[in-house]
């Protein structure tokens, strides 16, 4: 809501653009989608730092201990 108002006062063009969503350059739209997914996939593919793998092991261990006790 407030966002919309903000846009209106700051740049009225945005609203025109939104109405014209269908004519946003489809090539650019496709490119945005592809690059977003690729950039994100690269982040997902990064190896975990040691501190996080260690934490996972610790947590798993906690669980095992608990189960054994109960």
């Amino acid at each position, binding site marked *: *809501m407030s*966002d*919309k108002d903000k*846009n209106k006062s700051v740049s009225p063009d*945005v609203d025109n*653009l*939104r109405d014209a*969503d269908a004519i*946003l*350059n489809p*090539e*650019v*739209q496709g*490119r*945005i*989608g592809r*690059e*977003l*997914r*690729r*950039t*994100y*996939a*690269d*982040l*997902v*593919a*990064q190896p*975990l*730092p040691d*501190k*996080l793998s260690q*934490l*996972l092991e610790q*947590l*798993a261990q*906690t*669980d095992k201990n608990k*189960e054994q006790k109960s």
Partner: protein
Amino acid sequence: MSEQNPSPVDFQSGFAQLVPNLRAFARSLCGNPDRADDLVQETLVKAWQNRSSFAEGSNLKAWLFTILRNTFLSEQRKRKHEIEDADGKYAGGIAVNGSQASHLELLDFSKAFDTLPAEQREALVLVGAEGFAYEEAALMCGCAVGTMKSRVNRAREKLTTLLGEKDDDGPSGR
């Protein structure tokens, strides 16, 4: 019987498998890699402590992402005066190591992405990269579905403007 009994093994393996996604989401939210990993660490601990409150069969990724998001926001509030409006300061926040042929293109995309407000980056990642439905993303962010849609739209418009201008050798046919 096994359905009634939430399987710790399933939770645990699902949990571990989703850590890379949590990291990517954290990076998209806060840009700074170290801070993102701290955020993930805190999220994992919280999620683990509260795992009994996870409804088996519901969306574990959405559940974890919501915890991460809430952790991010409360931290953000705490640090607010320190890092007031850090948007856009993290050049290369979501940048990747440049092994691809389209390195330049990617960097430009990342730069453009970093200029978006945090709530739009978040919306774009949840819907566009993670593939959450608008309804799910709206639930996770505690906003109306229409708000989520308009955030995604505004993000796409802004990126279209930024990236479309750049290689405007195009379709207008001249």
